[in-house]
């Protein structure tokens, strides 16, 4: 049994509240990031409910057009920049050092700085709601020339730009620490091909972030400059250049918002099936590497309808996703195959993620074809597509991760019954909300409109609105679960699920230095190895 490198203990903190805010322990930073992401999630959710309430019937009932434009801009911006991306990074920041057997994250001060830059960026973005003209309202893309000062004046749009810039900078700093940890701080014996599946998906995630996130940071700086000093994005190439640069970030980020959750589900499947991940080598090659490389080379498909990009190339690379995703699904299902499956809330969320994300993925292949995208672009087909991948997919995957790892983070279980209730409610609500959108889009309903007039779309929109309220009910059940589980704790112990990877080889929650003793690492599922050595290998 190898002894993990230790961190010498320091004198106990004198002012606990302040010390908790300036702690360099990666677990504390990750918990803070998770908490802020959850708060922003609730804010973005309220914006969604306002939008859906408005859309239930044609005409304008509860908000003005100006407010609606701000709502969809801020809902999208909040969910992408301030919720799912930081949530994914928080999982990585907490778990990657543990999974590789490290005593701490690489460059912890950088991670700490990243946390607070992100938080302040998020607050500055939301501060736009307090300005006279309202917050950002030029879509989550901030598309020029619409976002230039002449067309969208006011401090709110400025705050949006600054908020996006800072939040992205903070996220990038955290991501780089996670990558450096996985590559540079692994325990002895932990070769690259013995890293846990989740860690590999974080490597793929953070590799993409290396260049994609700085491009957005620079672009936001240029946009801000343009609003003060005209006219960077004018002329024949200006607006196109803006979008080429934006989508170079904008596509990888949606995979940043996906890979960590598919990695989490891989871990969940492995734990609750009692089997190590099936086809590990293919999983690593296809998900962490091929999928990530393709994701960095498909961005032009957001511009198919411009007629001004290399459409065939981007159609080619976008269809390449079929290979990467197909292999990944094969390995995930293979992990459950002939397993001994325990139907915990985490596992159920993972299975529902698998099926729902597939709808998002298949609709993604649909719009990967320019001919089909010429109808679907900017219609509710696309809105349905990305909500199936990001909400029906990633958010359900996030709940699988939360139900699985909550005992490790807090030492207490989340209530299983409430978790399963939440799943059923959210399953119904999610599909009620987003499935009708494919029909609406195919029938010609375009996005980013508050009043869709009298085209026969009222029924489907009303169904979608009811579905959104049901989703909200499901989230409420989760909040109740959170409260009850933390108030009346059911202690979990070191390894409540018989998990495969190293984070389960220490206490719950782990001590500041992570490990007292590390088990030997001879495969990517060291705890499964240890268990099998004791019980005898599986049949």
């Amino acid at each position, binding site marked *: 049994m190898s002894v993990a490198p230790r961190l010498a203990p320091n004198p106990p903190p004198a002012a606990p509240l302040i010390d908790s805010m300036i702690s360099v322990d990666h677990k504390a930073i990750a918990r803070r990031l998770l908490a802020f992401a959850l708060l922003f999630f609730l804010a973005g959710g309220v914006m969604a409910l306002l939008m859906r309430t408005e859309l239930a019937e044609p005409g304008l009932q509860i908000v003005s057009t100006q407010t609606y434009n701000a709502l969809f801009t801020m809902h999208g911006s909040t969910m992408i920049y301030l919720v799912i991306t930081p949530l994914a990074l928080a999982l990585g920041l907490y778990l990657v050092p543990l999974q590789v057997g490290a005593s701490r994250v690489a460059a912890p001060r950088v991670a700490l700085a990243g946390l607070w830059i992100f938080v302040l960026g998020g607050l500055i973005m939301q501060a736009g709601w307090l300005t006279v003209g309202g917050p950002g309202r030029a879509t989550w893309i901030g598309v020029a020339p619409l976002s230039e000062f002449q067309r969208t004046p006011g401090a709110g749009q400025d705050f949006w730009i*600054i908020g996006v810039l800072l939040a992205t900078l903070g996220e990038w700093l955290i991501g780089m620490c996670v990558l450096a940890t996985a590559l540079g701080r692994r325990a002895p014996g932990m070769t690259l091909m013995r890293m846990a599946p989740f860690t590999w998906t974080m490597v793929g995630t953070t590799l993409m972030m290396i260049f994609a996130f700085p491009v957005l940071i620079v672009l936001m700086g240029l946009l801000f400059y343009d609003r003060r000093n005209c006219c960077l994005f004018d002329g024949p190439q200006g607006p196109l250049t803006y979008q080429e640069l934006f989508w170079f970030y904008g596509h990888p980020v949606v995979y940043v918002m996906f890979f960590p959750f598919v990695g989490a589900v891989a871990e969940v499947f492995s734990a609750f099936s009692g089997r190590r991940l099936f086809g590990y080598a293919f999983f690593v090659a296809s998900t962490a590497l091929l999928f990530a490389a393709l994701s960095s080379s498909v961005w032009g498909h957001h511009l198919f309808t411009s007629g001004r990009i290399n459409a065939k190339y981007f159609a080619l690379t976008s269809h390449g996703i079929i290979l990467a995703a197909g292999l990944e699904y094969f390995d995930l299902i293979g992990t459950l195959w002939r397993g001994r499956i325990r139907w915990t809330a985490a596992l159920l969320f993972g299975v529902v993620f698998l099926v729902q994300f597939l709808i998002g993925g298949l609709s993604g292949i649909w719009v990967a074809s320019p001919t089909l995208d010429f109808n679907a672009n900017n219609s509710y087909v696309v809105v349905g597509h990305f909500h199936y991948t990001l909400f029906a997919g990633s958010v359900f995957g996030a709940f699988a991760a939360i139900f699985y790892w909550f005992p490790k983070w807090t030492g207490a279980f989340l209530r299983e019954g409430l978790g399963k209730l939440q799943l059923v409610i959210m399953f119904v609500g999610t599909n009620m909300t987003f499935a009708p959108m494919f029909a609406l889009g195919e029938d010609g309903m375009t996005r980013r409109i508050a009043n869709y007039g009298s085209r026969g779309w009222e029924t489907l929109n009303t169904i979608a609105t009811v579905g959104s309220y049901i989703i909200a009910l499901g989230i409420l059940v989760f909040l109740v679960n959170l409260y009850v589980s933390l108030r009346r704790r059911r202690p979990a112990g070191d390894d409540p699920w018989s998990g495969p990877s190293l984070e389960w080889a220490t206490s719950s929650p782990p001590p500041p230095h992570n490990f007292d003793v590390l088990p030997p690492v001879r495969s990517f599922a060291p705890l499964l190895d240890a268990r099998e050595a004791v019980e005898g290998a599986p049949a």
Partner: protein
Amino acid sequence: MRRAWVVPAGWGAGLIVLAAVQLTLHPEAIELAMLAGSGAIVIVIGAAALVAERRRRGPRAPVEVLRWTSAGAVALAVGVCLIVLGWELGAWMVGIGAGVTALGLFGVIRETRTGRP
């Protein structure tokens, strides 16, 4: 540890290959430049990791000494945000931000003198 550099270097090479495929399909210059450039950057990072690995003398010390908090890092973060916010609110905010950043930098330097980062 020894072969970590393979990951960014190899992945960056993969991006270059994907960029090269563009050449068979009438590429736009900006698209070729962005993908190939990104691949090159990632390869450089891999090379830097290789150099850092070669330069490391001996294994890491078994027991590190580390401060558990860093007020300096937080001050640095807040200062940077205030500077950027100052671009909107005015020079006065940039000044405050610069001051906080300087304090933060000073704090971090002092922290690193008393314990390894």
